[in-house]
């Protein structure tokens, strides 16, 4: 929501002089890159002028070390990139997908029927008040310390965001649109897939964006306990062995992963919901 309004503002501000596409891309990249470059630059300078600072390695060293960890040798690629990094990505993606589908299904049911909404809502409100991370010990007891447990744990924690947004989104599709479906004798299944879900999609996507951030968070937390692989596990290992450079490198890896996921979702959203953004900026 904030995203669309800032976009609208940006569009309005830049209206007097419409720059070519590549220039606009360059400007938005500069807005993104310059502050980051500045922070890294200052950090690098301070750590170079002021050695030794064991808790805060030099940023270039962190980047170089990360590259070494992941792609330094064929063995590193095999063991660390595939064995650790992609493990985390995989369980996160699977948990996210299961949680999203589950959230959309239950959220749709809640959005469609008032009875279902009023029955399920208290349960939802209660369960989601428990911080998802606090349920990890329970999931370990129920499902053991394996990969399945982690995927279920991520799916559980992620589903709330999607569920609530879907329920609100489906419930807010305007009554006239539903009448249109009925008047033209569109079957209930088509009404669901062609009117209700597309109409709820802006809200659902807002939920998916939050859920993706939560998925990464929960994946890492789940790997802090009883894990034998994954970035979370590597982080705890590095900390235990006082390998601070490795610790920082893994944190950097997660930041990059988070950025990639976010841009991926933004890209999908742009393709799927172009109508929404554009119709709003005209209104």
């Amino acid at each position: 929501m904030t995203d669309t309004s800032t976009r609208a503002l940006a569009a309005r501000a830049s209206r007097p002089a419409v720059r070519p596409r590549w220039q606009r891309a360059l400007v938005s990249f500069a807005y993104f890159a310059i502050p980051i470059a500045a922070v890294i630059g200052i950090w690098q300078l301070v750590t170079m002028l002021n050695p030794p600072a064991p808790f805060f390695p030099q940023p270039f060293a962190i980047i170089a070390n990360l590259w070494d960890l992941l792609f330094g040798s064929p063995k590193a690629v095999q063991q660390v990139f595939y064995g650790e990094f992609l493990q985390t990505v995989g369980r996160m993606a699977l948990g996210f997908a299961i949680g999203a589908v589950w959230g959309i299904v239950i959220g749709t049911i809640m959005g469609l029927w008032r009875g279902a909404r009023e029955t399920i809502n208290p349960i939802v409100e209660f369960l989601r008040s428990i911080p998802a991370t606090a349920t990890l010990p329970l999931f370990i007891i129920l499902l053991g310390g394996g990969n399945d447990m982690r995927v279920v744990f991520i799916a559980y924690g992620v589903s709330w965001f999607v569920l609530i947004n879907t329920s609100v989104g489906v419930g807010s599709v305007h009554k006239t649109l539903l009448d249109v479906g009925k008047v033209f004798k569109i079957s209930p299944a088509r009404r669901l897939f062609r009117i209700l879900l597309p109409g709820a999609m802006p809200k659902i996507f807002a939920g998916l964006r939050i859920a993706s951030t939560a998925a990464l968070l929960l994946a890492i937390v789940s790997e802090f306990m009883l894990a034998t692989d994954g970035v979370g596990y590597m982080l705890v290992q590095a900390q235990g062995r006082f390998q601070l450079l490795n610790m920082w490198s893994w944190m950097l890896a997660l930041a990059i992963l988070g950025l990639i996921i976010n841009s991926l979702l933004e890209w999908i959203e742009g393709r799927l919901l172009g109508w929404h953004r554009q119709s709003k900026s005209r209104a």
Partner: protein
Amino acid sequence: MTDTTTVQPALVVDHVSHVYGSGASAHHAISDLAFSVQPGEFVSIVGPSGAGKTTLLRTLAGLLRPSEGAVIVDGNRISGVPAGMAMVFQDYSRSLLPWLTIEKNVGFPLEGKKVTKAEKKAIIQESLEAVGLGGFAKRYPWQLSGGMQQRVAIARALAYRPTLLLMDEPFASVDAQTREGLEDLVLRIRDTYGMTILFVTHDIDESVYLANRVLVLSRPPARLAEDIAVNLPEPRDQITTREDPEFIRLRGHVARLIHSGGEPE
């Protein structure tokens, strides 16, 4: 009908009442309303605001079940949305699907129906041309003006090939000039497709200008205050029809009825 070869009415409203809620808070929107509409007729429905015009139209559309009485379309008592009926809603910005292009919106009523791709394409094209939007197939609803959006909604109704078209204050939120264009468009479409049209409006001039008959509803609970035949020369013309002494007499008559709340003076 004095004719011996009686034509089956397109629509019969058989002593329909509609009550919202129950007990002390019950709101009697419509009370014992009865009239019938012949095939090809253009019937306007007017009444004081809050007279249950929209309730009536939703009941005729099968979206609301009447509390009492029956709605009979083509000889069959309806128990849901009848076949062959289309509707144009008041709020065009909410009745079009903003995620679909104009052509897909117009083709929407054909979803899941037994129509081949080529037929569908032809129907969409024809419907868009009928409302003068042939070149806008690939646009999105929110890229068009209000009047154009309502024309898309009319094209969508046409694509459904209805025999009965219900229109719920379709031009209430467009400017006066656009409205005149849309009124003449609807008359042209009626002549081309020969459908029966029920047109709810709060605009007295519009009700007389368009219709063969004007049904005036009373204050709620709405009864039929008067069923007025409009015998103005065809085709109607925005300037000469509105100058016609008969038009002026009729609009005055309807206005008096509405201002008195549908009670005889």
